[in-house]
């Protein structure tokens, strides 16, 4: 038997492999396109704020001093919640947010690395001492959501969690100082 049929078969295999490579290339391009499309149209991106803060003094003055913690509504209507993640609690333990409005969550840690997620949402970030972790999101359902620490931070790690209380917009009424607290239930 001559080599010619073998060469033809090898060419067929090469053709199949090139076709497969083309298919994989199309899939990779489609996946990347979905990520870019989602980022541009749905505003879904990995949180990527880089902002330094001194962990030794953050509780003494400035943005993360005790009287500034919790949810505030600025003069422009922007809702911002500031939370300290520390061993082994979030301060405050309950965060009030409105549904259907843009919310900015800002976290800082004075001690060790923490992490958090809010159940049922895409909010998920690390809280590293020395940096402010910032997440923009919008809550859609009116309910109490669990926010546990998901980075092992010490012996009390399993007790470190907070509640995010999502309120209807008509019940989300800031006080004279622009602050909003969780409703007592």
């Amino acid at each position: 038997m001559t080599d010619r049929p073998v060469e033809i078969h090898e060419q067929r295999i090469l053709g199949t492999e090139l076709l497969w490579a083309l298919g994989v290339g199309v899939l990779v391009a489609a996946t990347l396109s979905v990520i870019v499309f989602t980022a541009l149209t749905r505003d879904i991106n990995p949180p990527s704020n880089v902002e330094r803060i001194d962990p030794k003094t953050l509780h003494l003055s400035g943005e993360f001093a005790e009287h500034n913690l919790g949810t505030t509504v600025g003069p422009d209507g922007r809702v911002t919640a500031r939370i300290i993640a520390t061993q082994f609690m979030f301060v405050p333990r309950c965060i009030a947010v409105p549904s259907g409005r843009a919310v900015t969550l800002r976290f800082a840690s004075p001690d060790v690395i923490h992490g958090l997620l809010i159940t049922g949402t895409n909010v998920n970030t690390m809280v590293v001492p020395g940096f402010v972790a910032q997440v923009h999101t919008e809550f859609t359902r009116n309910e109490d959501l669990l926010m546990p620490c998901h980075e092992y931070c010490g012996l009390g790690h399993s007790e470190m969690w907070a509640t995010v209380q999502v309120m209807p917009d008509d019940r989300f009424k800031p006080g004279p100082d622009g602050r909003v607290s969780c409703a007592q239930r």
Partner: protein
Amino acid sequence: MTAADQSPDAHRPLEIADQIDEAALAEVMRVTPLGAGVLAGTAVALLVLGYLAIYLLVFLPRGPVG
């Protein structure tokens, strides 16, 4: 010991290559990429379907984040 082990071929030295029929080899080479393509294509299609299901039914409904 199985019946297969008792066959004459079981005691053949491994160094002796099998007698390959060129026509049979050519036939196998002709159909093998098709089967591999179907198997790999099915596996990748299931993977893509799983990705799309989680993306559309879980990820997007959880709302924007950034």
